[in-house]
């Protein structure tokens, strides 16, 4: 069961129109592809995807699961959206509530184990190893955990274990973490145990119906056999603009921790059919991913270009992520930027220039000097855009007659609904 309903508020305009699992990543993928590919590579072919926030792009991406080999006669991929029943209809109130609402779906398959996953993370993991661990410990619940620096542990649920890895304490986002071991949001349950816990949680009026905050602590208090499976592979939470940008750029390193080229562990996606990448006369590309359908006549350094991106003559793109079908004109300078899908950057534009100034409205979202341009945006010729800026989705800046956006400023449009 993949939880894919989250908004991911810290991704700013990137998740204004799509759910976080649908955010593009790594040249041709969307974040949820990693969880789905891990499932397919682990031979898990019965998968429910729980959607809620702006699911249109996500649902279109998933289709009937064919790209992950999940179009099956038995099992397969199911999109589970909130629904109305004869007595009442309601939104998913929390992660546990989302699963609780679909208990009848799970019952249909009468599984022994249920794996609860999040569609928000970029990682590469064989769930069979976790299942082997779960069985060998005769556990009721196993939480997949990873070690992070103590300074970062407070952003996550921390786990304290005894010397046989049985969990003795669990704290959700503690101020003073006692452990470096954090929960990756991957839970393996014996279905009977989970089912009972969900039924009980639903009756609890004080519960927020969240796995980390309610269900797990409650189970722990009842001395459920709960173990920590320590994962040592690649796992990234790409929940912020900075981490999304950084994790993308990591892929351009000579030996990145995430190997997209491993023939035995492929990542699958729903991608468009495009011709191979084209490097024109006079182009200069170094340390970058340039996806199919892209055409480069300029200079690209330490960047990730998605499918169908065009980079004109005399343009320099550095330390940037440029998403699908965005067209960058001639003689531009793009640095430390994320430019979303289907945008047009006209000739002579400069992005990411000038002094670094804190974002005036959302310093916790737009920081580290990264400027974010939304999808379907038109940036007029010769416009200058500073650092830590944002330009909202679908803005035609050319029509607005604006030619300068200073560092730390946001360009917002009136939403046309």
């Amino acid at each position, binding site marked *: 069961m993949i939880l894919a309903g989250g908004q991911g508020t810290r991704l700013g305009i990137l998740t204004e129109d799509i759910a976080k699992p649908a955010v593009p990543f790594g040249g041709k993928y969307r974040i949820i592809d990693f969880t789905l590919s891990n499932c397919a590579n682990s031979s898990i072919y019965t998968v429910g995807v729980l959607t809620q926030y702006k699911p249109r792009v996500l649902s279109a991406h998933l289709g009937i699961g064919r790209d992950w080999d999940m179009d099956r006669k038995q099992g397969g991929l199911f999109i589970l959206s909130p629904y109305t029943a004869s007595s009442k209809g309601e939104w998913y109130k929390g992660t546990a509530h989302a699963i609780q609402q679909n208990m009848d779906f799970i019952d249909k398959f009468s599984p022994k184990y249920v794996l609860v996953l999040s569609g928000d993370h970029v990682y590469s993991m064989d769930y069979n190893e976790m299942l082997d661990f779960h069985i060998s410990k005769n556990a009721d619940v196993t939480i997949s955990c990873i070690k992070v620096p103590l300074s970062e542990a407070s952003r996550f649920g921390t786990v304290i274990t005894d010397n046989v890895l049985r969990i003795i304490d669990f704290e959700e986002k503690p101020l003073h973490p006692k452990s470096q071991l954090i929960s990756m949001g991957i839970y393996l349950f014996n279905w009977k145990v989970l089912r009972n816990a969900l039924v009980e949680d639903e009756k609890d009026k004080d519960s927020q119906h969240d796995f980390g905050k309610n269900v797990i602590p409650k189970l722990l208090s009842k001395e459920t056999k709960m173990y920590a499976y320590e994962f040592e592979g690649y796992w990234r939470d790409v929940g912020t603009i900075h981490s999304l940008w950084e994790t993308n750029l990591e892929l351009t390193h000579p030996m990145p921790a995430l190997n*997209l080229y491993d023939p035995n562990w492929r990542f699958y996606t729903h991608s468009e*059919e495009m011709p*191979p990448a*084209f490097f024109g006369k006079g182009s200069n*590309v170094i340390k970058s*991913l*340039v996806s*199919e359908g892209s055409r480069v006549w300029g200079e690209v350094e330490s960047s990730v270009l998605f499918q169908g991106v065009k980079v004109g003559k005399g343009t320099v793109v550095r330390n940037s992520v440029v998403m699908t079908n965005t067209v960058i004109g001639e003689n531009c300078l793009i640095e430390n930027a994320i430019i979303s899908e289907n945008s047009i950057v006209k000739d002579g534009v400069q992005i990411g220039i000038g002094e670094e100034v804190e974002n005036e409205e959302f310093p916790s979202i737009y920081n580290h000097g990264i400027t974010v341009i939304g999808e379907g945006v038109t940036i007029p010729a010769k416009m200058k855009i500073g650092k830590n800026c944002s330009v909202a989705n679908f803005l035609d800046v050319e029509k607005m007659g604006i030619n300068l956006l200073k560092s730390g400023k946001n360009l917002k449009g009136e939403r046309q609904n």
Partner: protein
Amino acid sequence: MKVLGLILAGDKGKALDKLTKKRASAAMPVGGKYRAIDFTLSNMVRSGVRKVGVITQYNPRSLMDHLGSGRDWDLDRKHGGLYILQPYADEEGMYWYRGTADAIFQNMTILKRGNEDYVLIGSGDHIYNFDFNALYDYHMISMADITVMTKSSKEYNTSLYGTIKTDEEGRILQIKEKSEKPAGDLINLGVYFMNKKLLMDLLYASVPNEKYDFLNDVVISNLKVLRVMSYKFTGYWKNIKKSVQEYKRINMDMLDSDISTELFYENGRIFTKLKDLAPPKVTPTGSVENSIVADGSIISGRVRNSVIFRNVQIKSGAMVEDSIVMEGSIIEEGAKIFNCILDKNVTIRSERTYKGYEEPLIFEKWQVV
């Protein structure tokens, strides 16, 4: 209008030398990720053809592997779909196709069974991007019995192509097979459109009388009695199997912005077998200029004026110039290749240098040199 597509893909393509030792010319890799047949197949599918028969004979293994169930061309259908038509043995004996007309005749069932009104015959060897709807319209308006696609012979060596003479209206008066003296200023592109019933009649009238060639015995021998019209195509069109030089030139043509725009961007997509590979990557020691690079490839060396297929590794210090490197090949550290064609899974060992002079140097599948 319902149209049945037939693609002739049984030829070896002798002129391609070692490259077609183990594959039909229609299965020749081209343009970084495609096979020659992708172009005609995609053109047909995009022009509303829902049922396609691919007629094979010469070593079809790699072609069949490529086509699969037809899923990548949207041809895995409950109605219509993809049919592979191979020579077969039955009670009357076993024999290979004795010619193109015979090949279609042997598969008369596909003509008899369907509810299509028209048949579009193409070849698996042609590289072009075209919406056949323009051809259908021309066929109707000109009240043709058979329409043949043609092109001005200007850029072509006419001794290698069939040439055509028409009257002012576009009716074909004469077709000459590869000859020093061309019939007219048009070449035959080997694409034919006609009523299905008419095709069946013409086949029944020729093949049982030991006339097995489609062009000679079905088209040319009926020029006087039927209205055979020429539809003049003006875009990019090449035949993959004329020579190794020409094969290389077709690949290099795709480095030309105008040609690649016409073939791949402007007129609808060319579909091919999807492989789910990661985006191509240029590492800190790599550089690429005037080249195309397909998915899954990692470039750590220097690449100039070349076509790099999927899953190729060009290691640091290596140099690739003016070459075609097919899927899965590896150019090891410090190796240099100029004017070479590497078939699939070739390894060039480190520090080696290979250079083709007048003719490109060809390395066969799985060679380690």
